[in-house]
């Protein structure tokens, strides 16, 4: 087979592959789609509840221990893969706080202590300014710096759903995180 023939075959094979896979992906995603989507919606809701509970629980406790005031936050809704194959969802809530008067080391130590006290599995990665707590599917990442303390909470591992559910999740608007200070 000549090089030209091989290229022609490969080209044809590619087009067949694209068409076939698109069709199969479409079939695979819509077979019993209604029931699966309902199950996936429930999984997503459970994840959101877990993240909200973490924010209202351990994150508040960490912020209080660090003595840091809330500055602002965003809730991000993302799919895991690419537009043609979203695979599932990731939720990320980013919360920004004022610098801690405890300093970087004091803040990370305090955050680790609070996470442990509340039953989270704590990891101290190579960056001494970072503490990571994990409970179930939810992770809380604390990064302390002289200019800000930032917490990210969400599911680092993809929560697998149908592509339709993932797309609908990612289509949600960017949301500001509501945060009421304890005194209010």
């Amino acid at each position, binding site marked *: 087979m000549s090089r030209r023939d091989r290229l022609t075959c*490969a080209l044809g094979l590619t087009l067949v*592959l694209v068409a076939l896979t698109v069709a199969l992906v479409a079939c695979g995603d819509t077979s019993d789609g209604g029931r699966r989507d309902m199950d996936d919606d429930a999984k997503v809701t459970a994840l959101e509840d877990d993240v909200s509970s973490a924010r209202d629980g351990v994150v508040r406790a960490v912020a209080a221990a660090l003595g840091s005031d809330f500055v602002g936050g965003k809730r991000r809704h993302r799919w895991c893969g*690419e*537009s043609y194959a979203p695979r599932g969802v990731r939720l990320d809530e980013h919360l920004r706080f004022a610098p801690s008067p405890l300093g970087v080391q004091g803040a990370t130590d305090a955050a680790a202590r609070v996470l442990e006290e509340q039953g989270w599995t704590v990891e101290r990665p190579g960056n001494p300014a970072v503490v990571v707590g994990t409970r179930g599917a939810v992770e809380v990442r604390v990064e302390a*710096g*002289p*200019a800000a*303390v*930032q917490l990210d909470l969400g599911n680092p591992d993809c929560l697998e759903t149908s592509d339709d559910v993932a797309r609908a999740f990612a289509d949600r608007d960017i949301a500001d995180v509501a945060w009421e200070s304890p005194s209010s």
Partner: protein
Amino acid sequence: MSTVVVPVDVPALPVMGSLPDGAVGLENDLRAALVNAKDVQAWAEAISADAFTGDASDASGHALTRFSRRLDVTEAALERAVLATSHFEDRLARLFSQSLTLDGDRTSLNGDLANLRADVAAASEADTAELQARADRLEARSTRLRDDIAAWSTRYADAEAEFVAALAAVDTVEEGRVAAADPGRVDPAVVVRTLGSDADDPAAVRRWWDRLSEAERQAVIAELPALVGNLAGVPVRYRDAANRAAVGSDVDGLTAQQADEPLTEQERDRLANASAVADVLDDYSQDVDPVTGELLAHLTQYQPDEHSGDGGVALFLGDPDVADHVSVYVPGTLSETGTLDGTIGNVDALHDAAGRSGDGTVAVGFWLDYDAPSIDGFSPGEIADLARVVTPGEAAAGGRDLADYLDGLRASDEGAPAHLSLIGHSYGATTSAYAAHDGAPVDDLVLLGSPGSPTSTAAGLTSADVHVGSADFDPITLLGASGPGLPGPLGYDPAQDSFGGQRFEVDPGSYRVQDLFHNHSSYFDDASLSNITDIVTGHDPDPVDGRHPGSYQTLDQLLVGSSAVSGGEWLWERGEDVVDGVVGSVVGGVRGLAEGLVRFP
């Protein structure tokens, strides 16, 4: 014992009521408004009596000229405000940095004082003289530090006062007129002419930019944001400022236009692209560098009309000009400015993972300023666009632009050269390989799910280290795997052992045909993400063997095999349905029969 006089603790520094990111936010908004005002004023002035070389004695009766002059007053006031805000931001950034140093000194001194108090409490009479000497030394330190803090407070107060005065100097229309007539007002056209023919040379652009005054820089940014924002060699913080202004002015102007008339197709595309980028910037508006307090996101490219309306955009999390490790990700097929979700998610995941390592500062960005094959519907044009995925034409053209972009990052880099990695996925891997082949100045090249490389060996491609992530059951990465030395439609398979790249561990993926695309979109997870992170932070990933003939499933084998597995599953699931259906029919029939019998009179 004798008394030892221990100095009191040094109190905390005054809180900075104004922070650098507050000034940046204001500056970006002012500049976005200024760009639209300048656009209108440039049109009006160019056709007004002021641009007329003949007899313009009756200009005062010309309404358009009056309009142009009046708008110029607003423009001059906004120019002053943007420049003042920029100065204010710089001063706040320096003051903030100084405050961190002073606060560190204060914490250290107060700690030493606490230790001294403890030592005094436990000391005997004989220690008094030595302890008092320590106290005196600490007193001297305390005095110096208090003086430094007082001087810092004064500088902070001065910065605020001077900014307030700068705004107050142009907060009436009459003061705006004075600003407009100021002979020292910068003419951006004159400034741009000093660039000469060097626009294609990033190093020369960098030297040109360094020679400009801050007023000249700000004038050029506001007048020509599309030029500055996309000009390789301009420092990233200024490109970001220019591109944010362009995005803001596009959203503002086109949204206003949309309210009273339908937009053209090109305008709709532009507004969609601007809005998508604005959403990303808004999404990251609360993310700052925890050390410097500067906004994390930097928009380094914004070309909303490029690539048949798909637009071109590049963005970093972190500042590549100052980071120790810089990584650029190039997404593949179906990526465009309007669909950045997956792309920014991958960048965020990598930035997060690399930031945990503690191996230096990290900036991770994406570059999407090439015509990635995409599809927005099933028109013939869109099908043709998608069909281009099977030819390397766009990858080759994109590779040249990508290499230029990376040259620009090298030129604007500050301090020691950053460790620069280039990561391409899918068609973006082919594009990245072309960029490397064109001499892109990278240290590491990472090819994920690559459908093909322009050369048959890594050594022929680039002098950079070549790393290859290739899932066994990713069909796209098998497109080039016809065999050693045999290319596919997009080139050679870089995962072949004979290619000579370093293949690293990734999840092989699911062996169901309907999951094959998922396998292709899972490189920013688990082991694969961990290995990419290692490369980005200058470490070696976990290696695996490259492909040898006969040791892997070829594309046709994968398709047939995974289809058979999926087909079996499908039959199994349908089989259950059939059984359920039969059982249901039988039960229903019996029940119906029983009900019928019961009702039978």
